[in-house]
């Protein structure tokens, strides 16, 4: 697994004050048959249009409690100290089963739930749906879930339009096989982090005082005068809802190996609208299980918090129009709050196999909250090389003419 080597407070992790404080997020959650309060059916799914859960039989609809309010996560970040972790974000115990068996309370049969792609399964015998809502130490049940809001039909349109603009140089096999209707709704695992930190940045900044041209030989050259300052910025910073992938596969975003950067790009999500976890939101969708713990994700989150800090402090550096060179950046994380979430993505995937037998998985992804769309389209290399060669030929001729004319 790729890992960042920057760990701002590695030595702090061991100290006792930084042992995570866990708050329960599955209080009252039950496994088994989740029944409609009105008619008792277990045919429950998300109504994307309203964001509510709906009974497939009697059409009764109800809302789930907002997770941020339920877990009191909107509290002042400035008061945050130590490490606060939702129980659904706890460390994964390696021996914990990923395939879990439940007894159907309607007929007594055994029902298997593969937590790698859902936390629900249908009983083969009585057709009831069994849900798993209690957290076990395998990362399958998160603290909260953000329901799909973008309808499948909208996602299909967005994907078709994205691909439609990229048809000419697309691989012929892809063009022949592409069908936006094959898009899948997937809940992907993330960690959502609030950070309270104190930062001190020291360095040098330069402010331009004059810009002019000088003659060097027979050519004009640009020159600048500048004032140099020692710059210090010390402040408290609060980061809200920093969102990090929590699956080791998805964290690997090496663009020569995969197109996971596509899924990364469609962030951010409006995570503040997440609700308490209820497996019924998964009906009709699939999910991917979290497989990474705080130990692996903290360095990433802290490095990104450092980026956010550096970027934010630029607001106070407008005087230094020639830029600032920081020589020391101390970001002391004083408090952090972690919750795990399933976030909704419409995902079109296409496996490209080349002649050497290697394959590459291309994605076109739609953020199922904001509609933001990004994708990777397999290229017709020979066609592109041919056209690029033709462009080069014409360009060379024009370029040579320009050089001769002395442009």
């Amino acid at each position, binding site marked *: 697994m790729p890992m960042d080597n920057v760990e701002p407070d590695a030595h702090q992790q061991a100290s006792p004050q930084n042992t995570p404080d866990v708050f329960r997020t599955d209080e009252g959650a039950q496994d088994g048959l989740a029944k409609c309060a009105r008619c008792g059916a277990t045919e429950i799914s998300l109504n994307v249009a309203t964001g509510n859960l709906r009974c497939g039989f009697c059409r009764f609809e109800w809302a789930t409690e907002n997770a941020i309010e339920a877990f009191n996560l909107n509290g002042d970040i400035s008061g945050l100290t130590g490490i606060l972790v939702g129980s659904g974000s706890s460390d994964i115990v390696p021996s914990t089963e990923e395939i879990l068996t439940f007894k159907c309370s309607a007929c007594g049969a055994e029902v298997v739930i593969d937590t790698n792609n859902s936390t629900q399964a249908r009983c083969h015998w009585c057709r009831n749906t069994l849900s798993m809502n209690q957290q076990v130490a395998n990362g399958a049940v998160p603290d909260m879930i953000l329901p799909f809001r973008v309808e499948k039909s909208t996602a299909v349109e967005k994907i078709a339009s994205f691909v439609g603009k990229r048809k000419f140089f697309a691989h012929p096999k892809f063009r022949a096989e592409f069908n936006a209707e094959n898009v899948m709704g997937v809940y992907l695992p993330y960690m959502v982090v609030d950070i309270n930190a104190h930062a001190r940045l020291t360095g040098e900044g330069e402010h331009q005082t004059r810009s002019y041209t000088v003659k060097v030989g027979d050519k004009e050259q640009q*020159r600048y005068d500048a004032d140099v300052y020692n710059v210090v910025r010390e402040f408290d910073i609060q980061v809200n*809802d920093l969102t990090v992938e929590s699956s080791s596969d998805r964290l690997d975003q090496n663009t020569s190996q995969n197109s996971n950067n596509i899924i990364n790009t469609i962030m951010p999500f409006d995570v503040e609208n997440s609700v308490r976890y209820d497996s019924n939101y998964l009906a009709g969708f699939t999910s991917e299980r979290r497989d990474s713990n705080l130990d692996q994700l903290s360095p990433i989150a802290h490095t990104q918090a*450092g980026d*956010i800090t*550096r970027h934010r402090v630029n607001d106070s550096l407008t005087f230094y129009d020639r830029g600032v060179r920081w020589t020391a950046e101390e970001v002391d994380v004083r408090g952090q709050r972690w919750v795990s979430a399933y976030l909704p993505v419409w995902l079109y995937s296409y496996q490209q196999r080349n002649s050497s037998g290697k394959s590459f998985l291309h994605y076109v992804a739609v953020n199922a909250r904001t509609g933001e769309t990004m994708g990777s389209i397999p290229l017709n290399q020979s066609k592109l090389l041919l056209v690029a060669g033709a462009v080069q030929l014409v360009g060379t001729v024009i370029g040579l003419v320009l*050089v001769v004319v002395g442009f």
Partner: protein
Amino acid sequence: MVTDFVRMAESSQIIAASSSDDGFGGFGLVFLLSGFIFYAVIYVRYRNVDKRHNHESETESAMFNMQEANDFVASKSGLTNSKIDGANNDVVRGARRKFF
């Protein structure tokens, strides 16, 4: 091989940018690299290998209790670069997207 072109594209963009800085001096060069530039532009448009979530700017954050120090050190003149040497106030270290 493909990634070589991306690298080339990046450098050709730099060439294009620098040529616009000093008038039409390197204008011919853009034409001389037009095939490579074309390849890279299409490659990036289809494969979007350059895209990532801009966590540094797209994440909500707020600063409080700011204490600033700005102490004049010296005046420099005749500098050839429009930016301070080693400017790093815009760097991003936590990007997951990598090219190799």
